[in-house]
């Protein structure tokens, strides 16, 4: 004996699964132009994307997917990092034991730690390459200047995350790398000591204390680095990333050359049909949006729906990045040395590889290598979009005045100068070896780091004059610094042994 109400209830129950899905994805299957759009802007996680994307943006050579690879690596470190936090205890000795537990006792713990370590490395590589891509395609130009600065903030935060994570295992490697790092923070003392004002003006000492929370590297420092690593820096990174992505949209998508539309081949038949008529003027928002909006005079002829074209590309990059991290994690374990011993330094004590170029410079002058040169590089990079106000070659690889020719020449100059000065310093030593009583200020001003930076600077100014273009100078300078970074990092990583002495191979290291 069934009543109509009961019948209705039963049919509602049968329809419930489909209705739950329908209410979750309200736009239905993304099969038409309209539903493909609502699929994106009706979804909180996807609506950062535009609903249509230019075909130039989707060419793999436009970005090489490097920004996305960085994001993917970050998400991987985020997930694995949270998993590691289940077992990690941020207190000296206990920290080391908990990493050992993760390595030997926790199921999949070792694999997760390896992935975390490798994804962090992939992220550093990808973020540097991404910056190089944005630079060489002149994508930092108006209106994207400020996003270039946000990107530099992201680079610095990424390096900060890696550096703070380096201490957490509390092994010999970590302890001595961070001792050196904290003393680099203190290195302005090299200058304040030399001019004799450290007693009442000591920014170096204040920086080191802020980092360590004590005079020595101990539990206070570990908890500070932990807090920075799992809370402060990730939050800063997410905030900066949100702004970075949002501004890409607001700046009209990725930079592309003026003639991009003509240079694209005809769309394949499978491509989704496109509009024909470009709007002649903008309607909404005209009163509050400065200048022309991105769509005026530009038809959406060469755009395709982001769903599915852009999302397939993004998914591909994500999966490839994950694959790389997993493969590296399978073949190579994250290192773990002996428990930290504050009485016996690791020899050689090396920082993470991407800081070894700076460590190489630090071996001549702590202040110049640790603070002076990084500040000069950051300031130089930040100024690029404000000094290069040209518009030829935007969106082109090696575009702008000088072009690939300048880059090739700068490769020779950059590698040549860095190798020459390093060879000289390794072969003949530096000022202190020739003249023991040399004042420290002289060495701070004249050392391989400052000479190399000066040589690059002079070369770049010469390029500006020769090509009558700031872009040519920027191309030269950026390429030179990239070469210098590579040379110094390689020497610091592969050719420096105990006591920071030059060795052709670790097999030549003395036994001790």
């Amino acid at each position: 004996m069934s009543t109509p109400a009961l019948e209705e209830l039963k049919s509602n129950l049968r329809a419930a699964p489909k209705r739950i899905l329908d209410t979750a994805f309200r736009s239905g299957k993304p099969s038409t132009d309209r539903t493909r759009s609502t699929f994106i802007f009706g979804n909180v996680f996807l609506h950062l994307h535009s609903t249509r994307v230019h075909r130039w943006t989707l060419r793999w050579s436009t970005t090489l997917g490097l920004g996305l690879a960085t994001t993917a690596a970050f998400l991987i470190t985020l997930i694995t990092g949270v998993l590691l936090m289940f077992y990690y205890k941020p207190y000296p000795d206990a920290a080391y034991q908990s990493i050992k537990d993760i390595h030997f006792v926790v199921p999949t713990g070792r694999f997760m730690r390896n992935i975390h370590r490798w994804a962090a490395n992939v992220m550093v590589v990808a973020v540097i390459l991404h910056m190089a891509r944005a630079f060489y395609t002149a994508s930092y130009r108006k209106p994207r200047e400020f996003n270039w600065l946000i990107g530099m903030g992201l680079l610095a935060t990424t390096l900060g995350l890696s550096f703070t994570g380096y201490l957490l295992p509390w092994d010999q490697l970590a302890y001595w790398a961070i001792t050196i790092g904290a003393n680099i923070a203190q290195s302005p003392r090299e200058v304040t000591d030399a001019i004799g004002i450290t007693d009442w003006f000591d920014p170096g000492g204040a920086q080191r204390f802020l980092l360590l929370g004590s005079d020595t590297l101990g539990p206070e420092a570990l908890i500070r680095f932990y807090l920075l690593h799992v809370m402060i820096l990730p939050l800063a990174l997410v905030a900066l990333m949100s702004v970075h992505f949002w501004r890409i949209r607001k700046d009209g998508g990725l930079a592309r050359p003026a003639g991009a539309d003509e240079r694209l081949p005809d769309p394949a038949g499978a491509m989704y049909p496109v509009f024909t008529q470009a709007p002649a003027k903008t309607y909404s928002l005209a009163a509050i949006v400065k200048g022309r909006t991105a769509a005026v005079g530009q038809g959406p002829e060469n755009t395709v729906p982001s769903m599915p074209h852009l999302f397939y590309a993004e998914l591909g990059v994500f999966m490839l990045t994950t694959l790389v991290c997993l493969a590296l994690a399978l073949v190579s374990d994250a290192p773990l040395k002996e428990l930290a011993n504050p009485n016996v330094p690791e020899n050689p004590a090396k920082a993470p590889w991407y800081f070894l170029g700076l460590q190489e410079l630090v071996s001549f002058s702590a202040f110049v290598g640790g603070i002076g040169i990084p500040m000069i590089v950051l300031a130089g990079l930040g100024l690029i979009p404000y000094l290069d106000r040209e518009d030829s070659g935007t969106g082109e690889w090696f575009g702008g005045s000088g072009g690939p020719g300048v880059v090739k020449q700068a490769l020779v100059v950059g590698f040549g100068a860095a190798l020459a000065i390093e060879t000289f310093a390794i072969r003949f030593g530096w000022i202190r070896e020739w003249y023991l009583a040399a004042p420290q200020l002289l060495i701070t001003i004249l050392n391989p780091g400052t000479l190399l930076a000066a040589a690059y600077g002079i070369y770049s100014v010469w390029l500006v004059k020769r090509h009558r273009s700031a872009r040519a100078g920027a191309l030269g300078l950026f390429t030179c610094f990239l070469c210098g970074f590579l040379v110094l990092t390689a020497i610091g990583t592969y050719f420096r042994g105990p006591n920071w002495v030059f060795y052709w191979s670790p097999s030549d290291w003395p036994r001790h």
Partner: protein
Amino acid sequence: MTVVPGSPRSRLDPEPLPRRDWLGLASLWSAGSAMLFALLGSMRLPKAAIVAAQSKGFDVALPESLRIGEAFVPPNRAVAVFRDAEGVYAISTICTHLGCVVKPGAEGFECPCHGSRFKPDGAVSRGPAPRPLAWLKVTPGDGIFHVDEGKTVPPGTKVTV
């Protein structure tokens, strides 16, 4: 409404500084200054009044067998204590370059991190170290010596019992 010059201010006339504007500005400034002082106050937080680290002063008893020029390194201390004909002295073994612990030897001190070398009296003989190693204050006691890592003395200061 017509306003006669010199007549009392009308209810409808605009106020010289509107009351709402004044209140708004006042609250903005007080909120701003409260924030500023809160920020300045909380900037003290990262530096604890008492630093969590082992005491800088310690006592050391030198073994009778310690030869002249031979370093005695007390356990868990970055200090080398010496005895010669003129007395006892202590040299910090923390490298003045980037804080690694230097190793005392016959010809002085060697830093493993960036290759700095120091003479037996702590003076720089090679490498990136900008300053000589610090000499630490030693106070003689009853058969022992008290060393204070927090206090430096001019190089060459030696004490006798």
